């Protein structure tokens, strides 16, 4: 299947941001008709490597050969011309807000130098429909604004757009972190097809199971340096070892569960919106509960209701045996309900602020006297969280923007674990987080969930199986099952998650 001559060869690629050395002397080559995966911890330099390859950063060191010819891209356009297509990690970087769905799909027809001068809506929509078909997106209303569709739909649009260009090299930076398993399998089918047609594919993901399943070869980046190559047959443990070294194999809870059973949160016939069925749920202290379901199952809606963002229609929420009814987030926080929202860039991060300021944001009342901030206390608290959660950074004063995605996520989680709480809700806490950081966070949760409890929302089974005590399945707004993790049958769970009707 492999040609002898790689179609793209990257030699000794280095790149720094100010004092941070993001990449140093990294070598990879990509062959026709293979799926090559790059793995590495958060902040290892994967996205940076890709941005160099696609012409976004023109000021790198090293050489890139395409079909044996030394090439230097000055802009993303040059990479396009050379047949390189990229789906970037951040969805926000892939869609254009002011445009319709059709325009986003057929963006190329608008922006390329060959694009016709006159903008013809009909042609754009026609072309958009063709592109949409590739990823089963015909059902979308082509004329609606891109802002009105869901994250996963946006991601699918970006992928469809990249495929439409018939690339030589297709680069996907964590494409699966915001789409469902079903959509992911559809994506993989498409990738296999492209591979067989001779396209070279560069794939990045933190889901090692995916990596194992689809890759022909795996390249590792470790701390910005070349970390080795792995060939089929792949073993997850082997990948992990190359990536981050030895990991503790099993997570352990460091306390005795038996004597902490106190009912913390109880939902009684809670109806969230007009069309959904009542939800019943009990969460005890010391428990880590998983809530799993497809995209759009209503998990976030439930979380938002518990956190005071939405109003329920009927039913009751009881906290420590007392019925509560939050009118806003502030009240929920006061009652000890904390929530890490999904999509940290949009919902959680204050980009121009330090790690410390990001961590203490919701609890400034606690960290101030008569309104004046007690910075010493803030520093102490954030140093402690940075240390305990293993946040990789230059210090509590570093800007959160300068952290890698996984570490940013840790900061956001740290924000809500900082203060005593009854229950913390984590909505997709591991999106884009590397395996080691996941372990770190999970370990931290397991060690520190004693009087309180955790509700962890995810669409990834394995993620939850590792950490939780119990897993509930949500399907179209209903809780279909609620079982101890130790007794779970993975296949049965999967079918419950995806079952129709």
């Amino acid at each position, binding site marked *: 299947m492999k040609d002898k001559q790689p179609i793209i060869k990257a030699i000794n690629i280095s790149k720094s941001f100010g004092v941070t050395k993001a990449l140093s002397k990294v070598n990879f080559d990509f062959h026709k008709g293979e799926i090559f995966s790059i793995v590495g911890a958060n902040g290892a330099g994967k996205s940076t490597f890709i941005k160099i390859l*696609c012409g*976004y950063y023109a000021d790198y060191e090293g050489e890139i050969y395409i079909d044996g010819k030394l090439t230097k891209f000055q*802009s*993303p*356009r040059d*990479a*396009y011309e050379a047949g390189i297509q*990229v789906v*970037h990690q951040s969805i*926000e*970087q*892939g*869609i*254009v*807000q*002011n*445009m319709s769905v059709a*325009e986003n799909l057929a*963006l*190329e027809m*608008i*922006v*390329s130098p060959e*694009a*016709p*001068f*006159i*903008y013809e809506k009909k042609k754009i929509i026609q072309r958009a429909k063709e592109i949409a078909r590739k990823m089963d997106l015909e059902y979308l209303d082509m004329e609606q604004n891109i802002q009105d569709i869901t994250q996963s739909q946006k991601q699918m649009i970006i992928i469809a757009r990249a495929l439409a260009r018939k690339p030589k090299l297709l680069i996907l930076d964590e494409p699966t972190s915001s789409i469902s398993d079903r959509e992911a399998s559809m994506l993989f089918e498409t990738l296999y097809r492209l591979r067989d047609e001779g396209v070279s594919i560069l794939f990045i993901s933190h889901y090692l199971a995916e990596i194992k399943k689809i890759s022909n070869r795996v390249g590792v980046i470790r701390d910005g340096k070349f970390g080795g190559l792995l060939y089929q047959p792949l073993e997850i443990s082997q990948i992990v070892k190359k990536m981050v070294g030895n990991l503790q194999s099993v997570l352990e809870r460091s306390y005795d569960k038996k004597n902490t059973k106190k009912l913390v949160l109880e939902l009684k016939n809670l109806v969230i919106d007009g069309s959904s069925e009542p939800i019943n749920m009990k969460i005890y202290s010391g428990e880590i509960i998983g809530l799993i379901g497809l995209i759009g199952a209503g998990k976030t809606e439930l979380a938002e209701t518990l956190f005071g963002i939405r109003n329920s229609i009927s039913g009751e929420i009881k906290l420590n045996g007392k019925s509560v009814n939050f009118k806003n987030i502030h009240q929920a926080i006061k009652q000890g309900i904390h929530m890490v929202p999904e999509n940290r860039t949009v919902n959680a991060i204050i980009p121009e602020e330090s790690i410390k300021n990001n961590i203490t944001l919701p609890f400034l009342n606690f960290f101030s006297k008569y309104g004046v901030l007690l910075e010493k206390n803030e520093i102490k608290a954030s140093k402690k969280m940075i240390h305990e959660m293993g946040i990789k950074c230059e210090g509590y004063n570093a800007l959160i923007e300068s952290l890698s995605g996984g570490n940013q996520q840790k900061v956001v989680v740290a924000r809500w674990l900082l203060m005593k709480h009854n229950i913390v809700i984590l909505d997709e806490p591991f999106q884009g987080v590397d395996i080691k950081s996941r372990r770190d966070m999970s370990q931290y949760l397991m060690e520190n969930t004693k009087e309180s409890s955790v509700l962890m929302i995810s669409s990834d089974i394995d993620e939850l199986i590792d950490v939780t005590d119990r897993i509930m399945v949500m399907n179209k707004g209903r809780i279909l099952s609620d079982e101890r993790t130790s007794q779970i049958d993975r296949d049965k769970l999967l079918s419950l998650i995806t079952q129709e009707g």
Partner: protein
Amino acid sequence: MEKFVAFAIKYGFLIVMAGSFLGFGLLEPSFWSWSNMFSILLGVTIVGILALGVTFTLIVDGFDLSIGSTAAICVMISSYVMVVLNLNYIYAILLSVLLGVTIGLVNGLLIVKAKIPDLLATLGMMFLIQGLQLIPSAGMSIGTGMMLANGSEAKGEFAQQFLFLGQGRLFNLIPIPVIVFAILAIIIYFILQYTKWGRILYAIGGNEKAVKLAGVSVERYKIAAYVLSGTISSIAGVLLAARIGRGDVTSGGGLLLDAVAAALIGYAVLGVKKPNALGSVVGVIFIGMLLNGLTMLSLPYYTQDFIKGVVLVAALIFTFGLSKSEI
């Protein structure tokens, strides 16, 4: 109900406008005469052209505070070329437009290359130009017969052809500046609405990074937006010079805020909530009509600003306040 609200948002502004049009005409029949229509249009051309210019920069999510002063310096340059240097009016026009292009280019480079925030860069530019325009004539207005530094009198004159640009009429009815304004408005409307350039400019305003990653040379487009803004402002300046027939140092005064007001009101027209050429034109005509009508009804001048403000705020509440939006 939803439908009604949507309708109101889309057409509310135009309905208010039509209402005022009717009202003024009923109260003062001469308001409806053709010649008065063109008077209104003539009154708004300069500000209207500037509003079209600033629309470009608003679209790429920028801002150009230097438009008014660019127009003003072009008034001075045109006059200087004709009156002091005694050159042909063609040079006056060419030099003005060249200057407008240059100012726009410098703005664009400051913003794109030196990465100075738009408000800051164009504010600096505004001060700079405001100062610069005074220097050739040592702060004096430029008119035929003015004293020059060497003690002689300026001999040059405003060419008749040049003055025609500002004061002439087609068919003895339609003022030339109105024709220029209309042509510019149509071209710009067309570019923004129906060409890929327009789309890309809007896209840059939506998400600059995404557009850059899609392989567009965003920098070039942003610079182009400022160059267009500068160029269009210089055209406004030439027309203004031709209208007042003198290099008057005070001519830049209220232009900036009026133009910005018109462009911002344009957001409300048809409820698009985005900068757009049609909106800017309608916005500027609306203000002009209001002022004309109110003056005819001899409302004291000092109540006009107030009424203008009230109508503006009301239209805005109507457009923006009615449309529900999540945070």
